[in-house]
Every structure is written in C-alpha cells, then in structure tokens.
C-alpha cells in the first residue's frame, strides 16, 4: 500500500540508525561509571576538603599557606625545576635517538623500539632502586671509576638533584620517544628528497623541513613528560635522599605525618589546575589528537 505522507521505509531506517547509535553509546557506559565514581566524585571531594581548615570550618587557610609559607613556595619551585630539567634532558637525549630510529628500516627500528620499551615495561620501583645501586657512594660506577684511577674520591651522584634527574629522565624518556617516533615516521620522506633536489644541503633540509614537521610530535612528548613529572613521587623520594621534596611527596607527608587532609587536598587541587592549564595552553599549540601520537 502506498503511503502518502511518508517515504517508503523511512521510519524503519531511521529507527535502525537510532538503534545503532544507542548500541555504540552503550559501549561507553562502563567507562562512564568508572569515571564518575573514581574520578569525578573523589575530585569533587578533594576540592571540597581543600576548603576545610584545621578546626573543621570552611576557610581558605590551606591555600593561604601555599602563598605565604616559604616551604610551600620552595616545594612548587622544586617541582617545576625538576620537571623542567627532566623534560629538557629527555628532549636532548630523545630527539637525536628518535631521529636515528625514524631513519632506520622498519625492522631495525622495531628492534630499537624494543630496547626503548623493555625498561618502560619494568617496574618503576625496580628501576629507581637499580639506579641507587649503580650511583651510590659505594655503588658500581664509583667503585669502577676509583679502581681505574679516574677519581680518588667517590662522586656524589645520588641523594641530590643530579640523582633525581638521572632516574626521572631514564623513566620518562619513552614517553617522549613514542609520540615523537610516530610523528617522525609519518613525515613524507619525499619532502626531504624534494628539499635536496631544490638545493638544500642535508643540514639545511633538516632545519627547514624535517624539524618543523617534527614539532607537533616533540611538543606532545614534552607535554606528556612534563605533566607526569609534576606528580612524581617514588623516584625523587628514593634518589633525592630527602633533599628533593616535590609536591606529591608533600601531599603524602601532609596525610601520613600531619593527618591534614585539607592541606593535602589543596596541594592536589593546585597540581590538577596547573596540569589542566598546561594542557589547555598546549592544546592551543598542537591539536589534542597529536598528543596521542596521531597525525
């Protein structure tokens, strides 16, 4: 029977579309539950507690302390300094290595990638203590250097900034390499050939073509490293020997030593806000997709 107002099968087909969309949405439900109960609610709770003072009433004292207390300011400065330096070291070590890998055949690049990933898959705690074994006063490196006569007194590698940086840079390097590698692989090799054909020396071609095209991957890597560094706990605690106090360590001591959930929450909120701010600024520079290593 011919319908007058409706086209043939229109309603049925529309219904099918709706059903498919609904099924797809259904796949996200478990994750949305998780996010809600494990992220949204705790963060809201954190936010709330950061405004509770010592005496249990609402107050801004937790935030005031961060601006007025010298020790808090120093902790923030240390956190940013260590994160910045770690990021810088990762960039200086990671960029040339990744460039090298991106120029290899896929097979050899794959083998190198395994070299990058094996430490990445090893427990962070194990690697941190391994560095302690290598770097401490009577550690492997000092012993060998003394035995070979390079130095007479052991060098102080750990329990200071340098130890923390060595450990953190080692742990964070893969986070820089992975997005950068994906980016560099995607750069059209013909573009470099074209640059050479048009008269660019290899160095010139690198700086005018390859490097600018690798910036999105580099920024993505730098961002991931920096943001993760801001919340680092284990490595600075072990390799810093108590001299390097980063924000995460202060949060922990606020809770474990002083039972001050308010102060800890306020620190957490500040870290979160700073991280969001950095991500926001970065998203203005690179599209968010590229942070995942996609082109």
């Amino acid at each position: 029977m011919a319908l007058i107002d409706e086209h043939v099968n229109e309603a049925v087909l529309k219904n099918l579309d709706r059903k498919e969309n609904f099924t797809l949405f259904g796949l996200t439900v478990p994750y949305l539950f998780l996010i809600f109960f494990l992220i949204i609610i705790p963060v809201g709770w954190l936010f709330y507690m950061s405004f509770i003072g010592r005496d249990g009433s609402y107050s801004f004292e937790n935030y005031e302390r961060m601006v007025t207390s010298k020790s808090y300011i120093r902790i923030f400065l240390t956190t940013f300094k260590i994160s910045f330096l770690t990021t810088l070291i990762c960039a200086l070590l990671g960029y040339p290595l990744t460039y090298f890998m991106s120029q290899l055949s896929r097979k050899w690049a794959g083998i190198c990638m395994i070299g990058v990933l094996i430490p990445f898959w090893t427990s962070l705690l194990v690697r941190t203590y391994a560095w302690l074994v290598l770097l401490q006063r009577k550690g492997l490196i000092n012993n060998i250097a003394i035995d070979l006569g390079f130095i007479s007194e052991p060098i102080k590698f750990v329990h200071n900034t340098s130890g923390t940086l060595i450990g953190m840079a080692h742990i964070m390097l893969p986070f820089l390499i992975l997005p950068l590698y994906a980016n560099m692989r995607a750069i059209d090799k013909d573009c470099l050939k074209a640059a050479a054909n048009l008269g660019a020396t290899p160095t010139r071609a690198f700086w005018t073509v390859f490097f600018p095209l690798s910036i999105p991957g580099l920024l993505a890597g730098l961002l991931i490293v920096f943001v993760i560094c801001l919340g680092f706990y284990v490595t600075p605690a072990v390799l810093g020997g108590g001299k390097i106090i980063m924000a995460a360590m202060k949060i922990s001591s606020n809770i474990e030593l002083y039972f001050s959930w308010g102060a800890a929450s306020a620190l957490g909120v500040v870290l979160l806000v700073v991280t969001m701010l950095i991500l926001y600024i970065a998203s203005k520079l690179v599209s968010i997709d590229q942070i995942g290593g996609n082109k």
Partner: protein
Amino acid sequence: MQSNALNISINDVTKTYGDFFALKDVSLEVKSGEFLTLLGPSGSGKTTLLMVLAGFTRPDYGSVKFGNEEVVTKPPHLRDIGMVFQNYALFPHMNVEQNIGYPQKLRGKSKSEVKESVAEALSIVKLDGLGHRGVGELSGGQKQRVALARAIVFKPQILLMDEPLSALDKKLREEMQIELRQLHDSLTMTTVYVTHDQKEALTMSDRIAVINDGELKQLGSPNEIYTNPKNAFIADFIGESSLLPAKVISNKTYLGASEIMINHPSKDDGDYLLVIRPEKLFLANGKEKDTNLFSGIVEGSIFQGESQLLVIKLDPGSFGEQSLRMRLPNGSNIGQKVPISGEKISVGLRKSDSFLVE
C-alpha cells in the same frame, strides 16, 4: 628541436639490489630540449633510472653526464635540476608561495627577486593569486601545479617528472598532459618523464624509452614504437593488440593452415607472433588488394562510446583456435551495419599493417 638546454648522456648504468638487477647496463642519450619518456610497467626500473638522474640512488657503476659534466658522484642538492614527485612532496608547513620560493631562497635571492620569480612561476602554472593558500587547502590538480611551479621557478635546464599525473582523475590527467607538453615547449628544458601509462607516453613524448626488467628495450618516437614494436612485450604493452602465434617455414608465413602476407622481409624459420592492432582491421568485401583476410564468427560486439569493439573467433579450420579484437569507429562507418554477436564475417588487414614479432 632547437634548444640550449643541457643534454643527458647515460652510459652503462647498472644498479643491483642483492641478486636483483634494477638497472642493467642502461645507455641512453637524452637530446637537448627533448621530451623523453621512460615507459614501463611497475618494477621495470624506470623510476630507479630517474632517481639515478636526480642523485637519490647511487648506481653500482656507470656514467651520467649533464652536458659534458660527469654528475654521477654529485650529491642531489648540487645537481640544479627540477623534479616533480609522484605525490608532489609539497612542504605541508609552508604555504604555496613559501613552497615555490624555497629553492630561490636557498639560492640566496633577495626578497624582491624571490617574490617576482614566485609570481612568474604561479602565472606559468595558472595559479595566480593562490600564493597565500595553505597546501592542505588545494585540490589534487592545484597541488600538482604548485609542485611544477616549485620545480621550474629556478629555471633549471633539466626537469624530471615521476608519474606526476597518476593521482589525478582521467579527465584532468588528459588536460594536464597537453598542458605539460606545452609548458615544456615554452621553456628551455630537457624533460625526462616517467610513466607506466602508454597512452600518456604516446601523447606527450618526443621519444619514448621502453624499459622492462631493468633494461632499455626500445627507444624511438611514439610513432615508431607504436607501428614497429621490437618484440611481443612492447607490442602488447603499447596500444591494444592481438598477438596471434604464427610460423615461418622456408620464407612463408602461416597462421594456422593459411599463408599470410607480412610487411617486412621474411624471418628465419620458427615461431613468431603476428601483431594485429584492433583499429587497423576493417570489414572486408573480398576485393581488396594486398590484404590478409580473416574469416570467423563474432563472439562479442560491445558498444564503447567512440568505437565498437568486436571479439572475433577465427575459423579454426583455416587459422587454428584463436580469436582477435577489432575496433570499428562509431559514426564513420555509415552505411555499414554493425556486426552482431553470432554473425559470420570476414575482416581484412593490409599487408602494410601486418608484421611479426618474436
């Protein structure tokens, strides 16, 4: 063609990858101002040869000269030749103007010189006013033109093109073929063009070098190569053709049981292939002179727009079990009935169009 552009002498160029010969003792002279096409199927070595000219592939041995200068050891950035890449290889982080100005900047030109030459190149490729567009905003055809402008902006004497039209749709490709050829004629350049598209090669080239299995198989004008292919591969690869097994026995040529006439001195005894171009066949009435006549049954009659394609199964008693293709132009055969499937017909091929290949 009169021209001051550099000629290219390729001598004994060989390139191996393990046991595989990508190029085998290729020697070839590209004349000054000539448009020469390297034509071959994929994997034939044509692109490898172009890469040797550009300097991106180092041959195992051999000589490449631009004019009188040996360039085989010269790095690509010192060769001063233009090149258009298959996928254009435009710099995605630069706009159209910056892309085209790039080689000029490298040559230390002043800002005003760069600007002037970019504007000139843009107008040559008919993209005036698009200088500030980003590369991502261009259509395929426009990208192609930008790549071309970038390759000619510094007025190189040699231009290399690596299948530059393969990513374009058919109509645009055919337009660009004519345009590229006109561009070549208006500039003083020696052009080496790589393609796997035989029609493109026939359309554009002064001469075609057919390459297969890393070897130069035949070199000649489009007309020579089309009408006088050296072997079965070339006859089959260039243009349409039916290749029918034929035998030569004491100076006589046989197709099946029938003797046929051929256009060249008889070959030594043995097995050959008779090359039949579908458009050279005509509907015969039996009165033609110097014509081979083939009788058979129409197996298929297909309308293809400008022509009618007939597949004809030859009379097995006279010619053996084989079929051939024939093309009748539509419109010019007024008064002739288009044969239909199942019809018995007789077709003619002039002696002058009949030749054997090995």
